[in-house]
């Protein structure tokens, strides 16, 4: 098993590292090649017959005013949120995705990796499966401890190939194939 730790500037947008087994061996210099973004296509399962959305007729929205604002405890209508973004600007006319505590610590990557690898459904959602050994690369210094720690884990039968831009890329010595 080989693990490559790539530091600095490795992750271009929309690209991912792939392993080219034909040009290297376990004892030779490794070769990493870029694969175009077009090579990756998500797998969408359109065979499900279940209804995605059903209207819950028994639930009636009362009105926004039925529930108090979170500031109600202050019992003072002049109290308003005063926090501003640390960086970035809200665009009121846009759709928005809101995410709570978004932290990157070692366990984040470990957790993400475990979820993706051991979750068969997740693996299928990624849409790519592979045979052979697994390689992990990172172009970010902060993820290096995670990548290096994988050396202590039994990785010999990772049937998994994943593209995550610039951060953790899981590759296979075997043949990646679409599922």
């Amino acid at each position, binding site marked *: 098993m080989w693990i490559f730790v790539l530091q600095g500037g490795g992750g271009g947008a929309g690209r991912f590292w792939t392993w080219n087994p034909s040009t290297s061996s376990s004892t030779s210099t490794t070769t990493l090649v870029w694969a175009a973004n077009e090579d990756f296509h998500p797998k969408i399962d359109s065979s499900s017959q279940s209804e995605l959305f059903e209207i819950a007729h028994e639930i009636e929205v009362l009105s926004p005013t039925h529930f108090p604002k979170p500031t109600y405890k202050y019992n003072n209508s002049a109290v308003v949120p*005063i926090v501003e973004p640390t960086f970035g600007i809200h665009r009121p006319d*846009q759709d928005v995705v809101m995410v709570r505590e978004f932290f990157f610590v070692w366990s984040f990557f470990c957790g993400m990796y475990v979820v993706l690898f051991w979750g068969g459904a997740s693996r299928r959602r990624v849409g790519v499966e592979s045979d052979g050994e697994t390689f992990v690369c990172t172009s970010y210094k902060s993820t290096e401890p995670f990548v290096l720690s994988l050396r202590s884990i039994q990785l010999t039968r990772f049937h998994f190939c994943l593209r995550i831009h610039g951060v953790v890329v899981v590759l296979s010595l075997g043949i990646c194939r679409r599922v």
Partner: protein
Amino acid sequence: MSFIETLRNTGFQGDIVLAISNVELLFKDVEDYLRSKENVVVYAHELTCFKSDGVTPSPRSLLNGGFDVFQMCLLDDVYGIKDSEGNIIEKLKDERIGRVVATLRYEWYWIWTARYNPESWIMLIDARDTFFQTNPFEGLPRNQNGLLYFFGENAEATRLGKSTKNANWLRRSYGEATLSVLWEKPTICSGSTMGEQKAIDTYIRALSE
């Protein structure tokens, strides 16, 4: 990053709003990365947290490499009073009891929701175990006067009673009798919800009450 990258790769061009741990606790790469992305809005606000006794002040606790999700915290200096020109004239301490971050998040969501128009669609989602294959906002019905989407998990795989986590949450909060009534009900995870702004506002007020 897989969260942001896969979301943007779907063609989604709206805002991504994040609450993160204190910038000081982040790896520098992470802050640089977030700053490098367009239309990402980041809030880094220090929470007032306590040790397990709920009284002794304590920084955010780390547990197994991540934050202790059960640590009780307060949202000090998030609310206040402004003058007529919008200048902050008073910052207020949180007057409610300590809440875990999973509960506090809804107040963040409420504050952020107020920054958007009633016609905007909002998705509330946990980042850690989420990535995207398609644009979640594509094809949504618009101007529905308050449409709210909840997502039921696969009831063949898990249920409120079958899931140890769900069962324990219900048992701890509402008791065994309530849990038994809900045992066979499907899990509707609050970690993923979508709706029009006006609906999300109502929903979050209800959760925060």
